[in-house]
């Protein structure tokens, strides 16, 4: 039985190649390219694997600035069938509640769908909020940390395996439902050349703005966000002794270190 799957992704700065200013210890963000959140690629792979098994269609959606189009092309290169870029200035400055609201309203337009999947969290804010919040807007069951899924009873239920700190659970959920895929739980497939050409040639990326979604502007972006950042202060620096061993001999260095540690009360006996 074919599955209709929606995967939600985020376009984030590539923190994996971000360099650190050696003087200040801060991140150098200028010129850092954005990428699809790497944990979302596990969700895309998960969706593609289900599609391989059961057939169907995988649609990727992202609420992002227009530059995310490149990321959605990448996902089509991986095998995603259709992508939707939700972009509008009025969506800017959203916290997780306001973000999930827009995603939920977009998903409602894609209904009926069987499964809505997410990455476990993003690498830029790591809140892991969006899947649960979207489930609340859509009033559907959801589950996190999923590593495996298979269909039961034709298309009525899905059996999922998920991992918590000290246990592995198997749940049966009715479709449609939402799930967040455990980070690093699979290896995302590479982009193929033919899919990449398809992404460029065919018009597989739709752009949705608020003229189309017609959401109340008090419910989106900064205005629709119940949380506000009232101020930011530099993280206090922890004072350290900053003593360096002067020399190059490893044995001397080892003796110096153990002497210093002994002064601190670290005993090795």
């Amino acid at each position: 039985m074919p599955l209709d799957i929606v995967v939600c992704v985020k376009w984030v700065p590539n923190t994996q190649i971000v360099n650190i200013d050696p003087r200040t210890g801060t991140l150098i963000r200028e010129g850092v390219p954005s990428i699809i959140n790497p944990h979302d690629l596990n969700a895309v792979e998960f969706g593609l694997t289900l599609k391989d098994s059961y057939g169907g269609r995988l649609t990727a959606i992202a609420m992002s600035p227009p530059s995310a189009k490149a990321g959605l092309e990448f996902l089509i290169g991986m095998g995603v069938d259709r992508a939707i870029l939700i972009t509008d200035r009025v969506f800017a400055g959203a916290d997780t509640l306001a973000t999930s609201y827009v995603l939920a309203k977009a998903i409602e337009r894609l209904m009926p769908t069987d499964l809505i999947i997410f990455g476990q969290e993003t690498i830029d804010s790591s809140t892991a909020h969006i899947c649960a919040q979207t489930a609340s807007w859509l009033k559907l069951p959801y589950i996190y940390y999923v590593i495996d899924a298979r269909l039961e009873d034709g298309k009525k239920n899905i059996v999922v395996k998920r991992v918590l700190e000290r246990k592995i659970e198997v749940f049966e959920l009715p479709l449609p439902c939402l799930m967040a895929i455990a980070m690093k739980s699979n290896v995302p497939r590479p982009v193929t050349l033919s899919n990449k050409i398809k992404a460029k040639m065919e018009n597989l990326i739709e752009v949705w703005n608020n003229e189309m979604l017609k959401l109340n502007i008090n419910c989106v972006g900064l205005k629709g966000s119940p949380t506000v950042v009232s101020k930011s202060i530099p993280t206090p620096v922890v004072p350290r002794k900053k003593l360096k061993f002067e020399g190059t001999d490893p044995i001397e260095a080892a003796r110096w270190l153990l002497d210093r540690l002994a002064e601190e009360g670290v005993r090795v006996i």
Partner: protein
Amino acid sequence: MSAVQQICPEWEQNVNKEEFKGIWVFVECFEGLVNEASLQLITPAKKIAEKLNASITAIMLGHRIEMMLNEPVYYGADSVIYVDDEDLATYYPNVYGDVLVNLVKKYKPELLLIAGTLSGREMAPYVANCLRTGITADCTDFDVDETTMDVLQIRPPFGATLLAYIRTPHNRPQIATVRPNVFNLPNKDVSRKTSSVIREHVEIPRPNVRLLSSEKVEKEAAIIEKADVIVSGGKGLGSPEGFRLLEELAREFGGVVAGSRKAVDAGWIPHEKQVGQTGKSVKASLYIAVGISGAAQHLFGIREVKTVVAINTDPEAPIFDNADYGIVGDYRQIIPAIIEEVKRRRRG
């Protein structure tokens, strides 16, 4: 609130903040065990309670949990509200979430704290959204804004070089998660008692979800958040084999091995051993950082460490400015020398 202010019609209209009183701590008690990360939340709850002149209530859900109800009281909770029901024997996010939402609607607390365990991180955003209120993940501290009496939820945003003070100005309750071991447990006083233990009977939703099986996974005993000595490796190790040397050194000190995010991204060490903003905060008395450059996110995870040692080939690496003792050089030579010296001293 000014009359012209437009708020989202999806939100609860005209929330009267005055009606919301008290601090709630959701105390996980799955499978007969009170979660320590939940009890740690009583530490910041006490700080906020003092500023708001509020009391602290522990919320416990489950089945056959009566014998655990005193535990949060020993650590400082003033009262307990609990639901004991067969249908809560298994944690499932929608069910536990809906029960908690119903309790919040009835009692109207001003603040709800939830431990950022895996299940807490799964359930909390659902609860917040059902209540149409904000939520702040991974708070590392709290304060109170003295003009509005809003709780300031303090968290390091991406990069960890700044601390953001986040408020929920119009909605209630205010909801925050806190990762395990960010706060210490309050002192335990088994003579503490409360006269206010309320058993609530709420309707338990029955979604079409079934637990088919649950299997315990034995994890390695070494939990980095509790280790007294940590030897931690980064990208500078050059290969996963480098961790063997780190393990050998850790053994000499009776410690454990951890890693930076780059070491985790490279697949050299599992995520549960990652130190830093997106990993764990550690409280070791000795932290030896090997081949770790010292990004702000990493330093954030070791801010409570007593003594930091850095070993790195790059003399300009920021880690040296954030360490007590630094050695510039190749860890492949320095660590065997330290191990040898430790053994020599031990022999006397």
